[in-house]
């Protein structure tokens, strides 16, 4: 009986105390017709040793090429201390800090996290996390519609430069609430929103305009102009930002004349392992005036009965266990453990460390672009400044080239033609500070060979 501590004698004593004969009797209120769960298809139990052997065998099957894919999840160095602290039982096996006095560890950490995210984004109020980047954007859209008191529209401008999966998740989540997502087009030469081209959207009001920075293609949007344009229409501005990039880039709170109203995004680059896509965490910050519309848990500083500083969940009146069908959101569980990791991570890096990670990632990507575009037929899809991701056109189908690269130990980028077939074969490539020059050279050599081979095959 794994994890069940009861001895036979204890079971006997407990049944006697209850006054039943057998444990089975405790289920006598379940109709007989339902007490027949057939679960034989589940394998027999294994002990920890056997499960360890099984999962290690599984893990050993999986290969780890040098990763040049980003597209929303980034391979940064995570200091060992981050997860050694995060998996301490007191963090790992605690729950939401409902009993504040018995949860000051988690609560103070969340308060520190909120401060860090506030600083990174330049907006006062942070929540204690959402599920991931895409759902954070969905919640931001819902929040903006609630919070915009000047424009009672349910339309939200969603540019094509936002991560396609984010757009799809937002669609799934807001679809049943009458919110309309209006797609803003790209400038195909620079891979970002063309502020000039937005004029045609000015006729109808928007509750909010979404602005990614950097955008899905790694390109930098003209955030100041876009923000001022949106505010001119009384729309709220939702910034979607890579938090590592924010170590270098203008924080959303300072965009344009007034700053963005909500910032959100994927927290994974802040100390969270890639882990096949999760668990990550979404972050969200906003101006003080909108804090009561902010979804998710929020921690506030207060005092105890002796006047000593302490921390507690606050503004719970927004939440579903009190507001029920009128709640701000149905979000309940959040990503506390991931936020623990991110907080430790940010403490270890500091602003200077995070800026270096960002700047070195940028430099490595420049090196990567330079070495790949030296190959015949490989060229940047767009001009213009980028952070640490760049789309490059290749002269052969990505679905043929990528497996050849994988055979050479290179995860050679995200196949852009899946979502943007109009641009032909193209890879969205990324390098972080963890990619070495040797790996970049390997990528370049492998790509050159792959293109030669596909070229020969094409000619043959």
């Amino acid at each position, binding site marked *: 009986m*794994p994890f069940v*501590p*009861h001895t036979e004698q204890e079971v006997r004593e407990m049944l006697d105390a209850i006054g*039943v004969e057998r*444990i089975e009797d*405790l289920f006598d209120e379940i109709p007989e017709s339902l*007490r027949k769960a057939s*679960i034989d298809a*589940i*394998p027999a*139990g294994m002990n920890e040793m056997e499960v360890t052997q099984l999962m*290690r065998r599984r*893990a*050993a099957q*999986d290969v780890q090429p040098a*990763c040049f894919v980003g597209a*929303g999840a980034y391979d940064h160095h995570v*200091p060992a*201390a981050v997860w050694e602290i995060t*998996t301490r039982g007191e963090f*790992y*096996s605690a729950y939401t*800090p409902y*009993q504040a006095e*018995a949860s000051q560890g988690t609560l103070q950490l969340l*308060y*520190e996290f*909120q401060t860090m995210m506030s600083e990174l984004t330049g907006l006062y109020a942070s929540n204690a996390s959402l*599920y991931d*980047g895409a759902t954070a954007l969905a919640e931001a859209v819902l929040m903006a519609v609630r919070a915009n008191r000047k424009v009672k529209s349910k339309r939200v401008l969603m540019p094509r430069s936002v991560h396609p999966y984010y757009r799809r998740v937002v669609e*799934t989540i807001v679809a049943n609430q009458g919110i309309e997502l209006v797609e803003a087009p790209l400038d195909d030469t620079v891979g970002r929103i063309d502020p000039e081209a937005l004029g045609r959207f000015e006729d109808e009001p928007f509750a909010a305009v979404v602005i990614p920075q950097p955008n899905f293609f790694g390109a930098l949007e003209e955030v100041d102009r876009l923000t001022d344009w949106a505010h001119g229409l009384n729309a709220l501005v939702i910034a979607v930002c890579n938090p590592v990039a924010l*170590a270098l*880039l203008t*924080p959303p709170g300072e965009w344009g004349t007034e700053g963005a109203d909500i910032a959100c995004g994927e927290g994974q680059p802040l100390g969270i392992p*890639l*882990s*096949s*896509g999760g668990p990550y*965490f979404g972050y969200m910050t906003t101006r003080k005036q909108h804090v009561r519309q902010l979804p998710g848990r929020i921690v506030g500083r207060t005092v105890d*009965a002796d006047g000593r*500083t*302490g921390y507690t969940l*606050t*503004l719970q009146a927004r939440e*579903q*266990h009190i*507001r*029920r069908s009128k*709640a701000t959101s149905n979000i309940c*569980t959040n*990503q*506390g453990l991931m936020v*623990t990791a991110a907080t430790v991570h*940010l403490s270890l890096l*500091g*602003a*200077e*460390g995070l800026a270096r990670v960002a700047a070195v990632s*940028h430099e490595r990507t420049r090196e990567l672009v330079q070495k790949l575009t030296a190959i015949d037929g490989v060229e940047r899809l767009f001009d213009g400044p980028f952070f640490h991701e760049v789309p490059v056109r290749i002269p052969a189908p990505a679905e043929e080239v990528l*497996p050849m690269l994988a055979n050479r130990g290179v995860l050679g980028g995200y196949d852009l033609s899946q979502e943007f077939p109009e641009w032909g074969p193209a890879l969205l490539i990324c390098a972080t500070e963890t990619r070495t020059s040797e790996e970049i050279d390997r990528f370049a050599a492998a790509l050159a060979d792959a293109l030669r081979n596909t070229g020969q095959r094409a000619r043959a």
Partner: protein
Amino acid sequence: SEAVLIYDISREGRRAYAQAPAEAPGADSLPRRFRRQRQPQLPQVSELETVRHYTRLSQKNFSIDTHFYPLGSCTMKYNPRGANNLAMLPQFLERHPLAPDETGQGFLACIYELQQDLAVVTGMQDVTLSVMAGAQGEFAGVAMIRAYHDARGDDGRTEILVPDAAHGTNPATATMCGYQVREIPTGADGDVDMDAFKAAVGPQTAGIMLTNPSTVGVFERRIEEIAATVHEAGGLLYYDGANLNAILGKARPGDMGFDVIHMNLHKTFSTPHGGGGPGAGAVGVSERLLPYLPIPRVTKEGEHYRWLTESDCPNSIGRLCTFNGNSGVLLRAYAYVRMLGREGMPRVAEYSTLNANYLMTRLREAGFTVAYPDRRASHEFIVSLKHEAKELGANVMDFAKRLLDLGYHAPTTYFPLLVPEALLIEPTETESKRELDGFVDAMVRIREEARENIDMVKGAPYRLPVRRLDDVKAARELDLRWEG
């Protein structure tokens, strides 16, 4: 000096030098207009200071690893350390979510098998794991119910029925999916009030959201009749898996007639609660909702595993997470399921139920008022402290805070709302009789203390890092970040 912030330790110019690149390129290739003018104020601390600060902070938490934590409805049971270790194998941690399926067959095999096993144990047709939390699972479930009706052109269904004792997420979710919520009262015996229920069902009913055993800690005995009634009216049944632990391997929601179920893997399948998450809200469906399952999920073709995505599932309600769900949580659940096996699953239900009934019996015999004394407890039960509040002046909050002093995390307080001064108590199967007996002793002691010195009890806690906190001040004078 007790509550030193990491910012209090911070000193201009200090760094954890081993943790950032030695190079500091200027990033001059980024045009100046895009660059921030002032560095964010992040802590400037050494590696030792960080480790020491957060190690000390951690010690201020109660947790499963340190305390009995009978938080009703949250299934705070032991999180096997082996599951943590195995989920953190380097190959699993380092896999990019967009890496090709070919490079991750080992990982995908685990996910696929977990889908299968969860489908079997709930009696559903198939399961997706790409749902990140219970509330998301609820959303997916109700959205699928809506998609089902929509696909049939059955568009007059505007209502979701929800019992008044339901988790707050249920009505919140129904609203998010564009439905009206219609509350069904709970009868005196803890079951749904069948008359009210039948009166509420009709052609406007899209579906019903139920937890069984319910949030009042009893098994809904007429579930088959409820299912038949709802189905007859053309509605569907949603199973909130918050209490699945109570019947795991003993009875299956699919057999009860449910069309869709979410499971909180962080409850029933023992992945850690992590100070508030991450969870994972696996969703299972019956045959008729299969086309609408959110994507992605894993399929097996011959010996090859691959993700099913948009193009495979044209009628899916869509995508609920950026990538593939909380894989790390899923691997922990997988390890746990493998360790339990088919024999272990019913034991979860058996011993969590045994513990709850034993603890209920002991507390009742010790003179506490049990909310539904004539019913079996499921894996949890409600004590009402209305007498203690009235006669001694010690309410639920006082008991809760004093319990902390005595080394026990408080049960869930003031929920469900329909029982006055409710303590919802869920011991789980991983706690020993010794802990349960200790908890009873603590409850009795607090009542004794309240008789002798009510002010002392109302002043609790005394032995924790802080005394009772001023929540009102926290909400009125919002202080949400350090400002130097």
